[in-house]
């Protein structure tokens, strides 16, 4: 049950209506940044206020919410936001990707493929992909309007010139539906292919910058690249030390001060469910055989 003294999901209904209008416009123009009247929230800008406002505007009493931060359900930010909605909306929460109707995320897309009817809400720090080379908002809007996106490749060119390959590894720019250039928020480029033609609705909220944008279901999302340096995702020589997965995004964990380290899944739900299904990784196998 929701606590007394709050409107359902914290925001007042007029604000939700305003944000829903922005979301509808964003869905109608995939990748286009729609300005909206971002509200003060009971936590600072930069802590996911954009995502929270989007979630608050679309969530209903029957929804089930999952919140992740860097793929994990149990970090401070994820726990706080989950609790926030549990208290102000009284909705059910879950850690299971497929059980959620809404997944709010910071910096990752779940490994478990999303399906039709699910909504992924991204927390976005800086929405404007052209900002690094053009500080004037009026000018970046004009560049979007006229599709003057060639300069974006300058950055990728610099990567190759400096490192021999495109070294940008997160917040990797994409073209949505062959039209708007978009920042996917600081997700690893490993996750970029998951955005392409996803059956789920993807919504992006930037609270401080007051922008909302969207990728409707089944929309083409292409990562920028060069003909002779095609887009590639990260690969690891290791598998997850815990569940043995060779297909997920791995975090490196330093285990001691003598250079010891291991790689584990960044998506905690995915990793735990694989363990439940009986998968093991190098670390868990060692522990079991060591104990036997």
């Amino acid at each position, binding site marked *: 049950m929701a606590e007394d003294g709050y409107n359902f999901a914290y925001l007042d209904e007029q604000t939700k209506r305003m944000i829903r209008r922005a979301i509808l416009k964003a869905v109608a123009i995939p990748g286009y940044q729609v300005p909206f009247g971002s509200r003060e929230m009971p936590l600072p800008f930069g802590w996911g206020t954009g995502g929270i406002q989007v979630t608050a505007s679309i969530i209903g009493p029957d929804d089930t919410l999952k919140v992740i931060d860097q793929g994990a359900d149990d970090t401070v930010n994820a726990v706080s936001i989950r609790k926030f909605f549990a208290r102000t909306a009284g909705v059910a929460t879950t850690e299971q990707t497929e059980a959620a109707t809404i997944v709010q995320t910071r910096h990752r897309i779940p490994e478990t493929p999303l399906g039709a009817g699910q909504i992924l809400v991204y927390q976005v720090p800086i929405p404007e992909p052209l900002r690094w080379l053009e500080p004037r908002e009026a000018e970046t809007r004009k560049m979007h309007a006229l599709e003057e996106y*060639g300069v974006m490749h300058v950055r990728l060119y610099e990567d190759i010139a400096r490192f021999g390959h495109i070294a940008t590894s997160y917040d990797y720019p994409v073209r949505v539906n062959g039209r708007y250039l978009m920042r996917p928020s600081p997700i690893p480029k490993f996750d970029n292919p998951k955005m392409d033609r996803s059956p789920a609705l993807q919504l992006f909220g930037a609270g401080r910058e007051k922008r909302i944008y969207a990728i409707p279901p089944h929309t083409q999302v292409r990562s920028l690249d060069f003909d*002779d340096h095609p887009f590639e995702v990260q690969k690891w020589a290791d598998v997850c030390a815990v569940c043995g997965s060779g297909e997920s995004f791995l975090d490196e964990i330093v285990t001691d001060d003598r250079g010891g380290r291991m790689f584990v899944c960044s998506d905690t739900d995915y990793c735990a469910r694989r363990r439940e299904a009986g998968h093991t990784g190098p670390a868990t196998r060692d522990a079991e055989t060591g104990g036997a």
Partner: protein
Amino acid sequence: MMQEAPPLLSARGVTKFYEGIPGCRDVSFEVWPGEVLGIVGESGSGKTTVLNCISARLEPTSGTVEYATRHDGPADIYRMSEPARRLLMRTDWGFVHQNPREGLRMGVSAGANIGERLMAVGARHYGNIRQAANDWLDKVEMDTGRMDDLPITFSGGMQQRLQIARNLVTAPRIVFMDEPTGNLDVSVQARLLDLLRGLVTDLGLAAVIVTHDLAVARLLSHRLLVMRRGKVVESGLTDQVLDDPQHPYSQLLVSSVIHP
């Protein structure tokens, strides 16, 4: 008698007022393909205002500027669509600033500075872009080994060369230059002038060069406009204007030059 190609650029009655104060008044001239036009005059005479007006950077209060586009013939640059104008500015035109910081992206390498215009018109092959950047560094007599260095590490003369290469990579037909050698040492200036003259001749470029330096005007331009208080007081062949100036102001200007 001569085969008449149409002028590349025609300015007619170009007038610009800044809050009621005239920047330039009733300036008319034409630039033909392959021709270098110099605009001279002292500071505040309106020469940079004219340059900005004819290069789509500053809409005149009255008058027209027509450019002979490659496909659609002469077009008023302030009446064409904004996308068309912006495309023109970054492909068919070049603009070389006095201060290279205004014309270069200081945060990215020399190669990226040259490649940017190519990428802006759709080049998506890294190797080819790099090759073009390499060729252009070579053409402006820069060390190709410094392609990945930031412009900030180059000398003023080298930055100016880089700015020129960055503009010429899309094979423009006309380049606007605002005091291109203004910030350089005399010795560096001479080499740059030689380079510019060679490029203009070899590529058949048209150029409009604003300068207060009559020696620069003499060496680079075929024709000259002398401006004073926003008006063109004299125009003609460069050596005619400099060796046989008619207007009192031109005579004063020419006689004020100190010959070493």
